[in-house]
């Protein structure tokens, strides 16, 4: 049944789906992971760096891009589509500055990108953009924002989000790990972003790229040695956590012996 309705994208299927849009979302799921986290005074973007061929120059693949002084974007999905979308968004940022004499708000530029993605789901003979984006930045009032768009043209605001390969796993991790204390501290926010990324990416600074933006400052990509430092800190914390868990388990096992009496407990000990 799907076969009849999935070539022409302006056509709904009988059960109310746009297959081309869903296929575009599948393309996004194949892209390398990107994570965004919002803190009180900082926004962080982290992306997975795929291994490059031996003869390829490393720095030509840029998944985190600057749209304006105060807006940055990371994407997951087709790189070529992202290039085109990024170009249009950059022009719109400047156009807004010219016509309104004010920098864009993050919501405005996200809405523009989402409108553009939606337009290509409703025209003739054109396929949707095969990418999701994470748009971060600070508004004029200094409030940090993180938005995410997807190929269907919807956008939402997030405290922390992940897109691309194994995004669901990463998002579940973020849901468990995101706390108020992390929100308040810039250092912790960067570490959370790294941790989330390292859930699905091999550990090592050459596999991840982290970019941070502080209020009223331009986007800064962290250098390899800075990333190494964060990774070392995370690994030490993981070790301490594992140690603590082991000790807690031993303690629990040790406490069971003197206090219990009777046949039921001996049965449980044998287990």
């Amino acid at each position, binding site marked *: 049944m799907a076969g009849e309705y999935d070539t*022409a994208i302006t056509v709904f299927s009988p059960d109310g789906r746009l297959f081309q849009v869903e296929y575009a979302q599948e393309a996004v799921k194949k892209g390398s992971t990107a994570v965004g986290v919002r803190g009180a005074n900082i926004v962080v973007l982290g992306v997975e760096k795929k291994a490059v061929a031996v003869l390829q120059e490393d720095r030509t693949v840029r998944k985190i891009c600057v749209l304006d002084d105060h807006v940055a974007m990371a994407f997951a999905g087709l790189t070529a589509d992202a290039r085109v979308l990024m170009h249009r968004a950059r022009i719109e940022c400047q156009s807004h500055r010219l*016509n309104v*004499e004010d920098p864009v708000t993050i919501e*405005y530029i996200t809405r523009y990108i989402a409108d553009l993605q939606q*337009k290509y789901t409703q025209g*003739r*003979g054109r396929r949707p953009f095969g990418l999701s984006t994470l748009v971060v930045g600070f508004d*004029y009032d200094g409030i940090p924002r993180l938005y995410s768009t997807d190929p269907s043209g919807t956008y939402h605001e997030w405290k922390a989000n992940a897109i691309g390969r194994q995004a669901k796993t990463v998002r579940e991790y973020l849901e468990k790990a995101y706390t108020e204390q992390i929100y308040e501290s810039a250092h912790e926010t960067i570490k959370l972003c790294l941790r989330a990324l390292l859930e699905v990416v091999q550990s090592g600074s050459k596999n991840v790229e982290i970019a941070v933006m502080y209020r009223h400052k331009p986007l800064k990509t962290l250098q390899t040695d800075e990333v190494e430092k964060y990774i070392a800190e995370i690994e030490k914390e993981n070790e301490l956590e594992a140690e603590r868990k082991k000790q807690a388990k031993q303690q629990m096992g040790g406490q069971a012996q003197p206090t219990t009496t009777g046949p039921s407990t001996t049965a449980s000990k044998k287990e």
Partner: protein
Amino acid sequence: MALASVLGYKSNDDFSRSMKCSKTDDSIDRFDEKLNIENISKFITLPPFSDPAKYLKMVNDNVDRVRIQFLKGTTTLAFKFRNGVIVAVDSRATAGGFIASGEVKKVIEINPYLLGTMAGGAADCAFWERVLARHCRIYELRNKEKISVAAASKILANMIFEYRGMGLSMGTMIVGWDKRFRFCYMKGPGLYMVSDDGERISDNLFSVGSGSIYAYSVLDAGYKYEMSTADAIDLGRRAIVHAAHRDAASGNIVRIYHMKETGWEKIEEEDTNNYMYRYRQDETMNF
């Protein structure tokens, strides 16, 4: 849908051909572009002759027997002060030596926190400021915040610039109050003058029209930014009354508006001659 047909909007009949998907459609990016402010230039209607600027120049100047005079016979003024902006205008419309009307509303209420004044062609001002009102409202709905005075005046200036040299005649002032801090300038009262050659400038004090020379002398003599509201209203009133007294093309009623943080408020509309008699008899200015 009268407005739609005036603007040349055609309904999208081709859409029914879309089922075949036989070719790519370049108009995909043009769908409903009219609502975007920056696309104004693509949808303007031009006068129905080949070189509008040259033709209209002929008609305006003293060539042949035909002479259509667009006069900026009026006095309008606006100035910023500590407590906002005072806008004062006269109400006379003249065509040559004939007083066409003594009760023209030269302040156009764009929305509760934006005012525009009218000088020059009444039709031009009234029409374009209504188009501006439409764009301001759409901006407010889309972005969930009021448009800034700078953006509103820029929209108007960009629209007018597209018709540069084609015979528009407007000298208008856009007055408003910005609630929040903006990138380029402080929050608070905003005052821009926009004219038919596409000029858009911001300052504390403007006067436009044939009577502006008289109004400027009174304004410049008595203007202080730290004035009280009562003094500011009095200054605006006096400037219009004195201009109306000496300029033949200005007069009848003086209308005064006060732009505050909560929006504009209409202060008064009174006869200029009555004020002139009072000034002659007992009230002098405090310089």
